[in-house]
């Protein structure tokens, strides 16, 4: 089979997977269904974790209670008048934290539609946009960072199937958006902005940070990702394809621009918050206390051998983070897709071009679980894994691409064996994503194993029938 034929097949597979995911999952509401009383343990939430529903005139539609925060931000950003400050923006634990992803972007879409899109259609478009951007970035990374001609199709195909997107086409909360900023931001910074003058580089990064600051703390994670990426790129991954033509001087410029851009974004967003009277701190958590004060006190006690049972490390008392929480986070990312998890880690060993991706994924793993850490929540959010998983997916795809590219003059049977392995791993990983929806919903929401206990759920409202 020629390389051209393989490419054509992969192109078709990519298009089919994108189409299938949109068709199969585009109309499903997962944000509320996972809290319904059909599942053991959730009986108290009759109708779901909600208090109200929309009246569209031809149907009623319930929405998750926590989506109210995001809808309030959306309402505030539909409005050209200044919001009433604290009254205009819902200041729950989400606060203004996702004001770009779940407020501005849907408002922009609805404005451009001159109000013809209803709120659900608007959010569907916003969520689809994030999905498409992630797919596109995976394609661009596949083209730029890997020598073989196949990863550029394998990576976006895997990203297209990732349940963090396909479960959330109808989400109001848009919790996962920071992972798109991280992936796209890394690509833009490393490949595009790096080649520009210092002003343009700083401006581009400042804009990315300003937007991602209101997409679930994406600005901090993007900066952390850049630091990890540059470190990897100039150390053990310096011979990888993505680092070809990249010198230390341009990386230093990029780093300087990133730090300056971050500072500018923080200053501007803080000023706007001050004028609009939207506080920079939530009533629900204290970032400085959790990440700095308490954690440093624990570290000091650990170094000096003092008793640390009453101290907290990353939001959890004593050694609980290491004894229990870290394992819980790791199980969550493992069960999100065991093939991708193991394959991605193996890619670090066997595929040089995958190393910057896998290293950055590992570096982001604990920081991306900041939401659970901040409120000491003993449950792993699937979207907390998302920044790491997206990078692992690309690294894993790179390894598959390398397997498909084993030269024809290799040892007997090595090429066919490699190709069979690549096809099997790709099929297993995408198949795992496409099946077991309840498992993925359970993995997205805390992995408490409530949702996927029952295989078949049939619900009747009079003669109307729904199945889950």
């Amino acid at each position: 089979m020629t390389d051209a034929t393989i490419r054509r097949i992969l192109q078709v597979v990519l298009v089919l997977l994108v189409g299938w995911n949109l068709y199969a999952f585009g109309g499903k509401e997962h944000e509320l269904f996972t809290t319904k009383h059909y599942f053991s343990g959730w009986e108290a939430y009759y109708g779901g974790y909600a208090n109200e529903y929309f009246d569209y005139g031809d149907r009623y539609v319930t929405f998750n209670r926590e989506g109210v925060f995001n809808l309030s931000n959306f309402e505030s950003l539909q409005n050209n008048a200044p919001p009433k400050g604290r009254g205009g923006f819902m200041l729950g634990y989400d606060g203004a934290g996702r004001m770009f992803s779940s407020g501005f972007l849907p408002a922009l879409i609805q404005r451009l539609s001159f109000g013809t899109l209803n709120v659900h259609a608007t959010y569907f478009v916003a969520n689809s946009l994030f999905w498409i951007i992630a797919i596109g970035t995976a394609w661009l990374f596949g083209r730029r960072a890997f020598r073989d001609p196949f990863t550029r199709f394998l990576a976006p195909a895997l990203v297209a199937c990732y349940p963090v997107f396909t479960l959330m086409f109808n989400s109001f909360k848009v919790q996962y958006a920071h992972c798109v900023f991280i992936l796209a931001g890394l690509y833009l910074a490393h490949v595009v902005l790096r080649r520009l003058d210092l002003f343009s580089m700083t401006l581009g990064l400042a804009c990315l940070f300003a937007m991602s600051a209101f997409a679930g703390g994406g600005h901090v994670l993007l900066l952390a990702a850049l630091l990890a990426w540059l470190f990897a790129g100039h150390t053990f991954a310096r011979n990888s394809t993505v680092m070809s033509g990249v010198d230390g001087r341009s990386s230093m410029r990029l780093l300087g621009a990133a730090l300056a851009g971050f500072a500018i974004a923080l200053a501007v967003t803080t000023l706007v918050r001050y004028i609009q009277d939207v506080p920079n701190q939530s009533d629900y958590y204290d970032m400085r206390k959790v990440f700095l004060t308490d954690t440093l006190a624990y570290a000091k006690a650990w170094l000096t051998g003092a008793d640390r049972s009453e101290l907290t490390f990353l939001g959890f008392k004593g050694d609980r983070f290491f004894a229990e929480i870290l394992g819980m986070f790791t199980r969550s990312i493992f069960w999100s897709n065991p093939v991708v998890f193991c394959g991605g880690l193996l890619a670090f060993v066997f595929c040089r071009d995958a190393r910057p991706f896998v290293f950055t994924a590992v570096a982001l793993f604990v920081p991306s679980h900041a939401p659970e850490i901040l409120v000491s929540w003993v449950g792993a959010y699937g979207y907390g894994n998302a920044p790491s998983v997206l990078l692992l997916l690309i690294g894993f795809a790179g390894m598959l691409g390398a397997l498909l590219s084993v030269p024809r003059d290799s040892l007997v049977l090595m090429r066919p064996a490699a190709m069979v392995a690549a096809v099997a791993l790709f099929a297993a990983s995408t198949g795992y994503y496409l099946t077991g929806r309840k498992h993925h919903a359970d993995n997205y929401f805390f992995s408490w194993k409530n949702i996927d206990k029952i295989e078949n759920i049939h619900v009747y409202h009079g003669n109307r029938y729904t199945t889950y």
Partner: protein
Amino acid sequence: MKRNIAWFAASAAALALLYAPGVNRNLFYLMFSLSCAGLIVVLAQRARIRLAALALLLVAATVSVSAPLPRRVQVDLTYENSLKEYPAQARMIFRFELTELEKRSAECGGLQPYAMIVGRNLQTLDITANGKPPVKVDIVPVNERLLMMALLPEGLGSTVTLRLDPREPFMLHQGPEVMGLDAYPDGVYLRFQSPKCHVVYHAKRTRDD
């Protein structure tokens, strides 16, 4: 660099021109618009693309969407914590049509019929299904309320009339269960279950007796 500075300055000025006369005084909106404009200025090479993007952002910032969010119906309005109080002797009847139950039984294996009631003070309720009392009643605490799981007798037929007779005041959970243009607020439903399946039936309360 000069070109990018000029374009970014022009974008900022254009948005400021919306702010000054009060066309758009939403600073968060303008800040995000400027961020989008800045990124496009830096990434787009062609003037046409920059102009088109900036025009779209300005139009969007000028348009004030008049279509409000759809009317919102709060299920638990005036109720404390979604619990509606009923006095003693406030009898309730729910009639459930067990559509396709035989088909589901064939698929799912033996289905055990339960009446599920969510609320408080449920131990004061006398339950009958088609005039017969339940075989067994369990009441378990779930999230600051109680869940009553009443195992119903076999052979109920294709319609179940569930009657709740409270001996004392009790509270029923009100939830946003909707389908089409029908709302089913009362936390009362039937669940037929096997290890493989849950088959759930909803019905609206008929008149109080």
